[in-house]
């Protein structure tokens, strides 16, 4: 059996590895996607005070600390039986919307966009944000940097710190919003709305109207008919901060709808011998392997699946884009073409910008009533939010003093492990054919299958790289390396 490894041990953040196993004929026999296993988190937390968790968990990851911070404080609201006042919930959501805009912006321009805007076969030195800026214009590069700067400022204003927010408390938020802050946030939100609209125009012009790219998005290579997961409000509209988790089947019919506290009734975890990672699946369907379809318990939780579970969006401009999106796929819903996740991400960015504006202009946002003081310890708390990369669940159990006994987290990317493995395998099967040399462009098209999920490869490691960005080893069935490809920069 031949083995092809795509091993991007890179940069200043994390690493992951794709293994593609070929049979004697050179066709794909199997594929796996592995990320480093971070060990001992539960043990690390046990015995600590539950109220420390928003600060601890926000440090798990340098990329989405806001998501962990909010899932954590929501778990604490329950654990300490303290319902936050309306203004506190709104401030939390306001901060979260600023975070979503900056996170989705960075993904589109630095990661997802380059494959389309520079092109999947462009040399690696072009297939990055600089390649995007060269084609879309320098103004776009400046706009990305300004977008990040203004939203980081909002996060700092509301959250107390630039990167790891500290303002979240059980029962609310530690500070209220002044009128001057509100006015600045409103202005930032207006500019976010404009920038999100611009980004959607770029997508439509450069990707959707280009027949080659459109064909790639619509092709079966990146299509999986799985269950979809996301969080919705009482009217089944998308909500990223709060609501009930809704799952629809591959035909779009509601399969389940439940508060996060019931997640254990709906989600179980499958273990494979070749990785420490767990593969969550729908408990009521069962694990049937890495399979598509209604009979398989595999689901996905991404910007695309969030649109799939939503009846609509609560903001007007994003709702128009939502309708346009499904019309573009012939009115079919759910959409299963996974590359459409990039488009869905931009629609969410517009939604988050509009929602941020709505919250910033809500008269209640400057209310001084931002805290309910916990009066007792309930001992159990489950909090969830929609993180940029999928539904994020924090589950804590404490003793009567509030010292932690048990901690369980399901991170956004974790939900998608099975789906990512399936997408990588399918792309490899479609693109690697017997006897053909595996070229750079083919490898990139396989990487695109996991990049669309924006996986958080190792929510925390920042080790400097010590190897080449990507090494591909092709081995014969005796294990001898018969070909080594190094992708230089």
């Amino acid at each position, binding site marked *: 059996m031949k083995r092809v490894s795509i091993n991007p041990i890179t940069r200043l953040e994390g690493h992951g590895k794709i293994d593609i196993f070929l049979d004697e004929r050179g066709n794909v026999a199997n594929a796996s996607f592995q990320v480093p296993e971070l060990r*001992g988190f539960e043990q690390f937390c046990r015995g600590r005070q539950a109220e420390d968790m928003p600060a601890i968990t926000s440090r798990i990851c340098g990329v989405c600390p806001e998501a962990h911070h909010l899932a954590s404080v929501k778990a604490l609201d329950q654990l300490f039986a303290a319902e936050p006042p309306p203004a506190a919930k709104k401030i939390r959501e306001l901060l979260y919307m600023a975070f979503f805009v900056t996170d989705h912006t960075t993904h589109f321009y630095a990661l997802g966009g380059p494959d389309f805007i520079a092109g999947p076969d462009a040399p690696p030195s072009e297939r990055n*944000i600089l390649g995007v800026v060269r084609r879309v214009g320098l103004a776009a590069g400046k706009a990305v940097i300004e977008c990040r700067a203004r939203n980081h400022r909002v996060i700092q204003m509301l959250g107390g710190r630039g990167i790891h927010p500290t303002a979240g408390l059980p029962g609310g938020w530690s500070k209220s919003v002044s009128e001057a802050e509100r006015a600045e946030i409103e202005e930032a939100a207006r500019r976010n709305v404009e920038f999100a609209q611009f980004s959607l125009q770029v997508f439509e012009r450069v990707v959707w109207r280009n027949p080659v790219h459109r064909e790639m998005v619509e092709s079966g290579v990146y299509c999986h008919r799985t269950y979809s997961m996301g969080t919705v409000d009482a009217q089944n509209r998308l909500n990223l901060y709060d609501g009930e988790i809704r799952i629809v089947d591959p035909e779009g019919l509601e399969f389940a709808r439940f508060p996060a506290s019931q997640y254990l009734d709906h989600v179980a975890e499958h273990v494979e011998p070749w990785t420490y990672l767990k593969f969550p699946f729908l408990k009521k369907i069962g694990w049937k392997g890495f399979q598509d379809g209604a009979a398989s318990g595999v689901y996905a939780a991404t910007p695309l699946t969030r649109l799939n579970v939503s009846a609509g969006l609560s903001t007007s401009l994003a709702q128009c884009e939502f309708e346009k999106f499904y019309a573009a796929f012939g009115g079919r819903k759910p959409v299963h073409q996974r590359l459409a996740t990039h488009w869905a991400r931009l629609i969410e960015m517009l939604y988050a910008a509009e929602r941020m504006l709505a919250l910033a202009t809500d008269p209640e946002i400057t209310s001084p009533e931002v805290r309910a003081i916990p009066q007792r310890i309930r001992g159990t708390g489950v909090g969830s939010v929609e993180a940029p990369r999928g539904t994020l669940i924090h589950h804590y159990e404490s003793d009567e003093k509030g010292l932690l006994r048990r901690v369980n987290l399901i991170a956004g990317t974790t939900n998608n492990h099975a789906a990512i493995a399936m997408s990588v395998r399918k792309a490899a099967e479609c693109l690697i054919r017997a006897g053909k040399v595996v070229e750079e462009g083919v490898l990139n098209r396989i990487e695109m299958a996991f990049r669309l999920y*924006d996986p958080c*490869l190792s929510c925390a490691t*920042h080790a400097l790289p*010590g190897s080449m960005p990507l090494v591909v080893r092709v081995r014969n069935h005796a294990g001898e390396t018969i070909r080594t490809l190094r992708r230089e920069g």
Partner: protein
Amino acid sequence: MIIGLGNPLLADDGVGLRIAAELRRRLRGRSEVTIIELYSGGMWLMEAMAGHERAIVIDAMAGGGVAGAIHQLGLGDLPQTRTADSTHDAGLPVALELGRAAGLQVPGEVQIWAVEAADVETFSERLTPAVERAVPQVVERVLKDLDATPPVQPRRKSQ
């Protein structure tokens, strides 16, 4: 500007933060040197150093070498970053080029001190012994390096 990079909860990945904290103590009163801790690379790192003449980045390294080994690197020593390699972001060289193109004053000189880590995957607030021993050595070498280079006037951030 001195930037300690890493994760304080993942054993040796916190070495850059530890060294930055020690340097802050030792460099008290040196107003031309700014010291920060940072948890993400790429764009974040570029944005953090914008507006400064020179940047020193201190981080853990997973190069498979001897734990605690100290390496002084330049930007050219990093594998050139490409989108395919980046989980959520652009790598530092690309981010710096973007910042420069967009009119930010990015440092003309970026120096990287890297300490070979033994463990960056276990949740722990302690460094492993070999990496712990490297902390004072890196501190002294950075201080010596600072003394050997003429001070620069701090610039205002251009954002």
